[in-house]
């Protein structure tokens, strides 16, 4: 009598389970490798859109805005019109390459590809703030999902671990079929899911967070402040984000692209989190890289009052309009004119 372990049905069951486990592992690995080599539009549609828009500009020089959601929410059309009016003539094209979770790592990724494609940004306004270049990068998991390959993950592993993002990055690497299901389905079928849709009945628009009315930080702001506090804990500027910033500045320096590092407006509650120690570390770093690569730092962090914010560091509509005016008049237009004259 064979033992239960060696009964024919048990042997068959183990074979079935072994094949199933191997098939799942192989499929996940293959899907991950396919995604690593896929066109940027598959995993990083927002980045691919920026590259497409740059191609549409042809070979003409233009102004490039790079940064996170704080720049992304600015109205690029308004900025372009204002820039044209200020500079005169046809004015330069303006390309918004900012996007949510867009730190110098994303900016460097985009610029590398733009230059490789022969694009000609003449002036770059790059959003900067202490937290966005901190080590570890809080957005390293987002980068891993959007454009890291296996090789990148190997390089970034220490920072991924320090940022506490191991689980998210492991999911992207070891279970890509689930994590990238939307991207894979869109890639395979050419149509974005969901595929079952009904025409929606008219619904009342959901209310966004209320603007600050002078009564103190709202709930979204309080949450954001807690996150920023975590971000600034044990502040260091020697990680991947800083390295990416320096790579970007070096590229610009070599290509003759003028760079303005724009200290992005934040509320007074965020500025209170910038301790003197953080300010010293940040200031010294920005000063060093600006001198080394010929960039300029223009500080707008304290230029917009709290009532123009909808949370701790995102401007509301009026705040965006105000900042766009300032950015165009004080940063973009004079530098564009100067660089145009020089060229």
């Amino acid at each position, binding site marked *: 009598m064979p033992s*239960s372990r060696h009964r024919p*049905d*048990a042997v*068959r069951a183990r074979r*079935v389970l072994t094949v*199933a486990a191997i098939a799942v592992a192989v499929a*996940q690995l293959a899907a991950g490798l396919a995604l690593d080599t896929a066109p940027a539009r598959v995993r990083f549609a927002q980045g691919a859109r920026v590259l497409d828009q740059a191609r549409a500009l042809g070979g003409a020089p233009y102004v490039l805005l790079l940064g996170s959601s704080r720049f992304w929410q600015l109205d690029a059309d308004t900025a372009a019109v204002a820039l044209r009016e200020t500079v005169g003539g046809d004015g330069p094209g303006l390309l918004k390459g900012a996007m949510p979770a867009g730190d110098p790592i994303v900016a460097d990724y985009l610029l590398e590809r733009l230059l490789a494609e022969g694009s000609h940004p003449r002036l770059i306004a790059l959003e900067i703030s202490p937290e966005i270049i901190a080590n570890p990068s809080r957005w390293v998991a987002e980068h891993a999902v959007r454009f890291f390959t296996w090789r990148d993950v190997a390089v970034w592993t220490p920072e991924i671990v320090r940022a506490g993002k191991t689980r998210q990055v492991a999911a992207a690497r070891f279970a890509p079929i689930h994590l990238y299901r939307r991207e894979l389905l869109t890639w395979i079928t050419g149509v974005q899911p969901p595929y079952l849709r009904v025409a929606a*009945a008219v619904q009342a628009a959901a209310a966004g967070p209320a603007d600050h009315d002078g009564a103190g930080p709202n709930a979204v702001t309080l949450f954001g402040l807690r996150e920023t506090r975590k971000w600034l804990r044990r502040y260091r500027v020697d990680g991947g984000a800083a390295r990416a910033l320096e790579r970007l500045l070096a590229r610009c320096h070599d290509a003759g692209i003028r760079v303005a590092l724009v200290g992005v407006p934040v509320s007074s509650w965020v500025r209170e989190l910038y301790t003197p120690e953080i300010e010293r570390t940040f200031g010294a770093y920005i000063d060093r890289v600006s001198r080394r690569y010929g960039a300029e730092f223009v500080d707008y962090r304290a230029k917009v009052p709290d009532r123009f914010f909808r949370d701790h560091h995102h401007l509301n509509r009026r705040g965006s309009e105000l900042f766009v005016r300032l950015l165009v008049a004080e940063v973009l237009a004079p530098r564009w004119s100067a660089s145009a004259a020089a060229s």
Partner: protein
Amino acid sequence: MPPGREDRMLFHDAPFLWLLLATCVAYWGVLRTRRARNLLLLGASVVFYTRWSAPLVLLVVATALYDYGMALAIEAAPTARGRRARLVAAVVVPLGLLAYFKYTNFLVAQVWPLFGASRPPPVFAIVLPLGISFYTFETIAYVIDVYRRRIPAERDIVNYALFLLFFPHLIAGPIVRPGQLLPQLRRGRPLDWSRVEVGVRLFVLGMLKKAVVADQLALIVDPVFARPDSYATGTLWTAAVSYAVQIYCDFSGYSDMAIGAAHLLGITLPTNFRMPYFAANPAEFWRRWHITLSTWLRDYLYIPLGGNRHGTLMTYRNLLLTMLLGGLWHGAAWTFVVWGGYHGMLLALHRAIPWPAWTGRPSLRPFRVALTFFLVCVGWVFFRAASLGLAATMLARMFAPAAGLGLAPGVSALVAAILGTVLVAHLVGTFADVPRLVRAVPAPILGTALAGGFLLAALLAPDTGGAFIYFQF
């Protein structure tokens, strides 16, 4: 505050799969004694529940401790009167907790106008403990079975706590009887790879039902049930039938995963569904749908009420009462009460009508099945609608042709394909010898198919895929 998507532990999400895998490895690979394995399962169950609600795990544990002690007290009572008094105490406390957590706001809302209050009734911030409806019924079944001397009171507190907290069935059943689970927990459980394979097969089948069918159909059902006044009659019927299939695949998918997960640990949980939409009458439907609930209601409510032993009228009363309470068990809302009453009425009518003999012909079975499915679909409108008003609007527009928003042809075709697939699965499950068919498939092909099913569920799970419908009960 309910846990966010990142925190909660759904059967088809990675955290649960890791917990299950780690438990299986430690259970079969490291631990050797029955007691150590039971302790591990108890620990895993507490971890599982804690991910949903850390403080409320104390309530489940307290309930388990209370009825563990009360069952021993019932058994030790020297007189019949003492036994009865202790049974009442054993039943009242868990039922009281269920009533407090689940029905307080509902009851206040009902009695508030009776006192002439002009303001809206107060709403108390009471968090419904997950699974309370299920484990309350299990613990009540236990003390009643001990009282009736069907089973002895459990001496081992670990076994009893595990009976109640065993994570595959803790949140949404199947509702396990003590006589089904406790003897298994007292026995040693050798590793049987064939059972593990069956467990994995069931688990993958459940994932497919949940992610590929139920969560996809929800994309049609949810917006239509939210605003039935905006949609055309055809769309409303599509949504009603889709909901019938959605709730079946959601709940039976959950049950398959629960039963599959238990198989991986060498434990058998009772069957909960048996091709319910092929029932040919309402009584048969309830013998195929949520079987562990309907048999619980039969054994612990309908029969104690007198069942069919006291004449026709009393039988109808008992049927209606049982189904009304069964409806209310699902949720504290009039929609559930009406749904329960509707099914009670169907059962009573089915029993009352003197059906001519020819209607029972096998050749007419498809028509009886279709009629039963139609009646069940109408009932689901009450069950799914957010209010009686919305249910009435939906039913009125379903039965009186109305214009409104429709479905795109491609979407209709996709819905038809999904519903057709479920129909074919019902046919296969009813008429084919599935275990024999599975045995005939070569191992490499079966293994690849299992992997394919798992990956398909992972690929097609919509972003909006959420908790199982029955978790709210």
